[in-house]
């Protein structure tokens, strides 16, 4: 027989007045079975759930009212099972708990603050995880069917080429559809100052694959805009619609100017949607192949080997990832063979479930979040241990009260429930405070705005939602039960007779095993927390004092993309030459030059290089090498030492022999015994690829990452290999930064009024982005470590103080009988220190294993860094000794007579 939804019936049982309950349930069933016959199971169950949901509030408020009216007994006392439902008991317990907590404001406030810190920190980090991983991307319908499709070359991920994408799209039977896209920053003009925004070049079906609905107008029709059949139209993001068009409905048909090229707006994307990658803000969506300078050109799109596009697809229902991958690989391989005659070998596809975070970054971000979550979880557990300790002390004080109740016939279960309700109330209130705290902390996290390159704008939604609330509620309830069950069970286990006689007077030993375990575990958690925090701080300081090989102090950087105003190669070259000349003339500028890449700003390569007479490593077709394209004066601007030969000069122009300045590592690798000046190397095979003549050798530097093996690196003339986007580096006299920043802006405007200019930024600020994960982790771990240290100290102090308090009589007797105070003191300290010390050793053991997992996040610092371990151990030992010494000193100062009397 069909059942009513049991869970929902249970909810009704909890909230309904027991006198009404049987009638209400049978009435509900009557309608439910009628609905079941008429409309089927799904509708009937849905109806039932709605009924229950709609009944909760009226039933509860009715019960609260009648309960208040009837006037209830404040003392839970012996259980009354006749007619008293679970709910009545719970309400009674809650009221009693609230009164007990209010009666002891000191305890309550301290406990709530402690817990709120722990729960708040957890909620803040969880809302970060929620914002990045769980909330998903607004507007996308049915994301479970989506997959990321990339090319897999020897385990590394590559983008795909347009011809292969269109072949695979047409031929495959595993996907409903697939769309290609690529994000490129563009200058958006029209009225007012041009701004740089991210654009997304998409195939016409991008929006339909994601199943988005336009907020206004329409999207590109899936059939009408596939290269080469491309409309001159654009879709703008909701945010851009708000910012630039004040949400005006007349935007449709208006013209926006992208990199100098006008396009008509045909639609607005749904609110909150940037791209299908979480947080990425996009200004405008353009059809792939639209002839806008700076976007992918028709020429680039036609090459079957140009991996320039990313792909998102939607699987057909019932098709899973693995067969899809096999089918797509076969197709792509065939397509490539047909188009190129198999020049590149097997074309392996990688198909992965779509997620808000691209699969390439998923592991790194997950590890990072896991570290943060562990850190805050440790803090929470310490806060909980402290509060559990406080509860334990409090229940110890209430032993007489509890014993009286037991003697009067209250069941143990009833009392435990009462005590648990008190903790639940305490933890839930603290949870609510913690959520408020986390809102504040999330805003603080968002304020960590890394200086990202122009046009890249990431905005995460860290707002509260049901997941965050559910998380903090669960955390509160679980910790409440976990940390107060043991104290509650202990308190109610009391031996009636001895307690009533007042055991403390009998001088028997007070059991403190539970407390010792708590203090020990707390110490263990503090050790782990502080060492993790210490390791991150060490990483940060070692990174900042690292010798990078270049000097970024007093260097200002302005990045300019000549394609954003539609300049071609010739005009661009002219523009950059003029810009460098004029920049040098600005007063306050000591040296200036242009380079395609910032140091650490990613590495570019023309491929492997070869040198005549030097054998390539086994199985490889050359040596890995990276390059930067620079204008004359680059080494002087960044204080990179020229060891031999000369810098690139204005004479090294397009038509002449290509020249290169190489780093010391490269010189030593290829010409260890000879003078490298005048020697040649080739990209590709000897005398087949590009031929470079070595004209100079410079000191090694950090190029790609702060911690790397020094690679082969060479600098070529930007005039010989033109990059459309370059960064102007200027060494500026101290104090002249502002004037220079204003003037350089002026200069660029004079040279080309349509070119968007980002404000000049100090080079060192730009490089901060590379420290970001370490900075955030060090900051979180540092703050949490400090909180943890405080909590740990308070915990040890509390336990020792309590133990001393319990033993006042004993101490009194000892001193009265002539014991030396120093003896008593050392006795107390020794006893007090056992648990923290055991905890510390256990914590160290765990930490040694745990920090290994951090290796990738703490470059340059050993996970067993002796300085960090040593200082943490020293600090904690000092704290533990101090926390036991203080109460112990208080104990020996007691007047024995008073101690004996007070008992």
């Amino acid at each position, binding site marked *: 027989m069909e059942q009513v939804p049991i869970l929902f019936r249970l909810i009704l049982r909890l*909230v309904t007045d027991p006198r009404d309950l*049987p*009638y*209400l349930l*049978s009435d509900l069933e009557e*309608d439910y079975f009628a609905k079941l016959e008429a409309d089927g199971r799904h509708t009937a169950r849905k109806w039932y759930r709605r009924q*229950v949901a709609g*009944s909760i509030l009226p039933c509860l408020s*009715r019960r609260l009212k*009648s309960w208040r009216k009837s006037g209830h007994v404040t003392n839970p006392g012996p259980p009354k099972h006749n007619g008293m439902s679970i709910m009545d008991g719970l309400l009674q317990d809650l009221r009693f708990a609230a009164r007990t907590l209010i009666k002891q404001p000191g305890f309550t406030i301290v406990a709530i603050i402690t817990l709120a810190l722990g729960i708040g920190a957890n909620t803040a980090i969880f809302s970060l995880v929620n914002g990045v991983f769980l909330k998903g991307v607004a507007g996308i319908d049915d994301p479970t069917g989506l997959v990321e499709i990339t090319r897999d070359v020897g385990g590394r991920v590559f983008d795909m080429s347009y011809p292969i994408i269109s072949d695979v799209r047409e031929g495959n039977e595993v996907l409903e559809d697939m769309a290609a896209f690529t994000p490129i920053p563009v200058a958006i003009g029209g009225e007012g100052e041009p701004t740089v925004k991210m654009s997304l070049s998409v195939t016409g079906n991008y929006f339909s694959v994601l199943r988005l609905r336009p907020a206004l107008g329409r999207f590109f029709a899936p059939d009408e805009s596939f290269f080469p059949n491309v409309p001159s139209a654009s879709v703008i993001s909701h945010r851009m619609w708000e910012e630039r068009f004040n949400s005006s409905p007349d935007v449709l048909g208006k013209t926006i100017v992208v990199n100098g090229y006008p396009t008509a707006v045909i639609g607005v994307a749904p609110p909150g949607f940037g791209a299908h990658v979480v947080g990425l803000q996009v200004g405008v969506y353009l059809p792939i192949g639209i002839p806008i300078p700076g976007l992918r050109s028709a020429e680039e799109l036609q090459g079957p080997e140009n991996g320039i596009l990313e792909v998102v697809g939607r699987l057909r229902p019932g098709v899973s990832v693995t067969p899809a991958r096999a089918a797509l690989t076969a197709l792509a391989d065939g397509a490539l063979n047909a188009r190129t005659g198999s020049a590149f070998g097997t074309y392996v596809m990688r198909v992965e479930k779509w997620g808000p975070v691209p699969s390439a970054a998923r592991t790194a971000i997950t590890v990072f979040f896991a570290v943060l979550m562990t850190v805050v979880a440790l803090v929470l557990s310490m806060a909980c241990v402290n509060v559990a300790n406080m509860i334990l002390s409090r229940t110890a004080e209430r032993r007489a009260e509890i014993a009286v109740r037991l003697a009067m016939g209250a069941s143990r279960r009833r009392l435990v429930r009462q005590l648990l309700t008190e903790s639940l109330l305490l933890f839930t209130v603290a949870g609510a405070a913690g959520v408020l705290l986390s809102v504040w902390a999330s805003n603080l996290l968002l304020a960590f705005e890394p200086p990202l390159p122009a046009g890249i704008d990431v905005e995460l939604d860290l707002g509260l939602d049901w997941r965050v609330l559910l998380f903090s509620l669960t955390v509160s309830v679980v910790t409440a039960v976990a940390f107060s069950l043991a104290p509650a069970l202990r308190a109610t286990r009391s031996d009636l007779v001895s307690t009533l006689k007042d055991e403390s007077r009998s001088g028997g030993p007070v059991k403190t095993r539970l407390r010792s375990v708590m203090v020990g575990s707390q110490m263990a958690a503090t050790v782990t927390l502080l060492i993790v925090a210490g390791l991150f701080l060490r990483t940060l300081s070692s990174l900042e004092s690292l010798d990078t090989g270049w000097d970024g102090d007093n260097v200002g950087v302005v990045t300019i993309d000549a394609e954003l105003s539609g300049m071609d190669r010739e005009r661009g070259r002219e523009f950059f030459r003029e810009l460098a000349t004029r920049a040098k003339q600005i007063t306050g500028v000591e040296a200036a030059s242009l380079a395609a890449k910032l140091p650490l700003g990613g590495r570019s390569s023309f491929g492997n290089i070869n040198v005549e007479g030097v054998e390539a490593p086994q199985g490889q077709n050359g040596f890995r090498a990276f390059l930067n394209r620079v204008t004359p004066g680059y080494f002087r601007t960044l204080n990179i030492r020229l060891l031999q030969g000369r810098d690139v000069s204005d004479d090294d122009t397009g038509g002449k022999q290509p020249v290169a300045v190489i780093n010391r590592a490269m010189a030593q690798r290829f010409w260890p015994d000879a003078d490298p000046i005048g020697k040649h190397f080739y990209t590709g095979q000897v005398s087949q690829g590009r031929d470079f003549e070595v004209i100079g050798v410079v000191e090694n530097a950090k190029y790609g990452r702060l911690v790397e093996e020094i690679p082969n690196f060479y600098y070529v003339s930007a005039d010989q290999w033109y990059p459309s986007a370059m960064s102007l580096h200027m060494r500026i006299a101290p104090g002249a930064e502002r004037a220079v920043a204003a003037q350089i802006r002026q200069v660029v405007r004079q040279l080309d009024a349509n070119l968007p200019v980002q404000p000049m930024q100090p080079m060192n600020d730009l490089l901060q982005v590379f420290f970001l994960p370490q900075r955030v982790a060090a900051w979180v771990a540092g703050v949490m470590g400090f909180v943890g240290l405080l909590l740990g100290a308070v915990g040890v102090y509390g336990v020792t103080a309590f133990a001393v308090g319990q033993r006042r009589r004993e101490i009194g007797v000892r001193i009265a009988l002539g014991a030396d105070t120093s003896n008593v003191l050392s006795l107390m300290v020794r006893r007090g220190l056992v648990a923290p010390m055991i905890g510390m050793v256990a914590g160290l053991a765990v930490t040694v294993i745990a920090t290994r997992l951090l290796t990738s996040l703490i470059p340059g610092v050993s996970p067993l860094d002796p300085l960090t371990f040593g200082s943490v151990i020293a600090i904690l030992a000092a704290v533990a000794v101090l926390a036991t010494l203080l109460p112990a000193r208080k104990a020996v100062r007691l007047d024995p007579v008073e101690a004996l009397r007070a008992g």
Partner: protein
Amino acid sequence: MCAPDAAKKCTALLSSPKPFHIPSVVNNMAIPKSGFLAEFELYVMLSIARLGSEAYGAAIRREIEGRTNRPVSIGAVYATLGRLGDKNLLTSHTSDPLPVRGGRSRRFYNLTPEGEHALRHSAAMLNRMMDGLDLQAKTG
């Protein structure tokens, strides 16, 4: 939908021509201190009047839902029935178990004389408030 035997009573209640004086309201202790019936209370009372001897929880819920065309939860009905019972406007009695599957007994509700009075009073107040108003024209 009035049950046949209740139809008369129902009409009588609603169209009572008894003149109404404010002082009589104040002095009449049968009307609760809060004075008026709340909207939902009025619906429940009216349904009971309409259903006559067939007024039990599920029937009342269906009656209101059917006539107001808005979803009504059983919990709200029971909470209101309880409240009206507290105000002494209703009585209830339990039937013998039904000869159907599950065979539970039902609890039927009747208006007390005070309840009938309160209903009449509320209906009259409503009439008087509406008197002379042409809502059709206003809202249309």
